[in-house]
């Protein structure tokens, strides 16, 4: 079949999520030479200031969103969902940064650091911090699931070949024939809305589970294809042959001979996929089919911004910058990791 004959090209045929790494040449020469290999990778990575900077930035984002949001809320004295009557002017326009609003419950004036976020006069600053939590939850959980499903299916298909491979490959092709975006939107807003209340006791924000599941359903096949191609080529290698001849079990071969080789593509691809899902969450929420209100997410904050773009353009700026910087950081980190793992990579 044609599809196997031009594996590489097909792998790149994606408009969406993290489609760029898939063309990475599967370089077998960089063999797993025990610790030496990882040391080399680390040495190369350390020198990459952009990638290190990205890591610091991402750690900063996580700190700001997790303990940060909670601390800020305690410090400021109101929650991200408290409406403020004087957070809007008489034209229904949210007030600008550093505005004073009256809190009837504490009977004192409070400062909205970045102004109000919407026509309810809620605190943009707090919503940005809490929104980051949601965006990160969606992106990270979606990536973990997609990578696990993709790696298992890809490895099984590549290792066992034969009819298992045929089934998995055909499944992949069928999934690829779906207009994924339309399906994601249709599912998220219809069937998925039943799951909006699943929050695992408040650990996740409402709607996160829905988005994550939908992303899993349509995202697994990219990693599956990469891992399959990689395993197919590793399968032919002498050390696998040798292991097979010594009678090692399949599990043992996969664990100690294949997985170490797969670490690099998995790590690199994951970082790029995370970036893709940060964008995807923002995009779906922008269309109003992502995270349900009143839960803040970066996409939700962006979607309410355009109506104020003549009056309060900064409302497009804050969440926009948050999304762009975060995706950029993940992408730069991914590039850095790839260079570290394979300095001759051309992408």
């Amino acid at each position: 079949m044609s599809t196997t004959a031009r594996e590489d090209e097909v792998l790149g045929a994606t408009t969406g999520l993290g489609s760029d790494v898939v063309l990475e040449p599967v370089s077998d020469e960089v063999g797993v030479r025990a610790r030496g290999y990882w040391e080399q990778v680390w040495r190369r990575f350390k020198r990459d200031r952009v990638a290190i900077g990205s890591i610091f930035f991402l750690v900063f984002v996580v700190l700001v969103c997790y303990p940060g949001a909670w601390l800020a809320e305690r410090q400021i004295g109101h929650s991200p969902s408290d409406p403020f009557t004087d957070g809007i002017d008489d034209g229904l326009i949210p007030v600008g940064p550093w505005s004073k609003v009256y809190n009837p419950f504490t009977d004192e004036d409070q400062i909205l650091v970045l102004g109000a976020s919407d026509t309810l006069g809620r605190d943009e600053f707090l919503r940005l911090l809490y929104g980051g939590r949601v965006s990160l939850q969606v992106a990270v959980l979606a990536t973990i699931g997609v990578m696990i499903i993709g790696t298992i299916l890809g490895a099984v298909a590549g290792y066992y070949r034969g009819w298992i491979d045929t089934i998995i490959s055909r499944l992949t092709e069928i999934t690829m024939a779906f207009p994924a975006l339309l399906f994601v939107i249709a599912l998220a807003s219809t069937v998925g809305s039943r799951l909006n209340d699943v929050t695992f006791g408040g650990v996740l924000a409402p709607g996160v589970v829905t988005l994550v599941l939908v992303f899993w359903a349509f995202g697994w096949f990219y990693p599956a294809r990469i891992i399959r191609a990689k395993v197919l080529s590793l399968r032919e290698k002498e050390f696998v042959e040798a292991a097979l001849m010594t009678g090692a079990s399949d599990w043992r071969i996969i664990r100690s001979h294949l997985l170490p080789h797969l670490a690099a593509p998995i790590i690199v691809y994951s970082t790029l996929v995370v970036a893709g899902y940060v964008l995807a969450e923002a995009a779906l929420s922008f269309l109003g089919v992502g995270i349900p209100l009143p839960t803040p997410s970066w996409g939700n904050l962006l979607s309410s911004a355009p109506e104020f773009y003549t009056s309060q353009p900064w409302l497009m700026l804050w969440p926009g910058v948050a999304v762009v910087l975060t995706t950029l950081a993940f992408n730069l980190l991914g590039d850095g990791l790839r260079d570290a793992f394979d300095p001759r990579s051309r992408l």
Partner: protein
Amino acid sequence: MVQYLVRRLLWAVVLFLAVTIVTYVIFFLVPANPARLAAGQAATPERVALVEERLGLNDPIYEQYWGFLKRLVFDGSLGESFVDRSSVNDEIFRAAPITASLVFGAMILVLVISVPIGILSALRPRSVLDRVAMTYVLLGISLPSFWVALVLSYIFGFKLGWTPIAGYCEVVSVPQAANCGGFGDWAYHMVLPWLALAIVQAGIYVRFVRAEVMDTMTQDYVRTARAKGAPERKVMKDHILRNALLPVITILGMDIGLLLGGAIFIETVFGLNGLGGTAIRSIGQFDLPVLQGVVIFGAVAIILFTLIVDLVYAWVDPRIRLT
């Protein structure tokens, strides 16, 4: 070749069946009563029951699917809208040209941007141009497309007033009621949507073209050609570009298929009432036949373009049809 063709066509049919089955099943699960919706706002319970009967909603789901498939394949009918009882085919025929205008125009622009940049960048790795190009690539994959679209519409449409902000003009059969029409108006209204879609898409293509060209340059046949003393221009044209750009065209074909059902964000921002807008609207109103119609149209587009790409590829590269 014939055998390959038949195999490929059969597989396309399998894909089509798979997509329609899944689509049908999923929309069957939607938490709303389809007959209630189909019967309309003012319907009595008796009428709802009647509609239920007519739509065959009392039959087992596989029979319903079979009926749906028969109508689709033999009558070419996607059914009628629950909301206004209009034909879904008409809706698709109205919306598809709009989305197609957007996608094809933007993809041409993508090629115009990415091919020269990608090639130059591959020929001079680590040059200033290459670095700028790689930065662009990074931005292209990091920027949300709707955000780019909003910013473009804000700057060029709103602040500078160089282009219309939104709307679509028919090229042929312009209705009398339309406020604009003809090729000029059409292109003028499409400039910003094309740019917005192309800017984001082109990033990926620059990277891809660059990689393909670099990869091809190290191939044996290129070295051989050079060793034989072929002029550099000829090597570039006949050996490198020809082979490097073929895969690009492949991806392009598949992306076009994908985008025909998925250019929703750009359509939304620029008020293009194409397939994406139709899908979003029908989701909100639980207008399942229309949603289903758009999804199936999108899937057919993907299957069709993949098929075309495969066939063209097989025709150009004889090795493939032998495998």
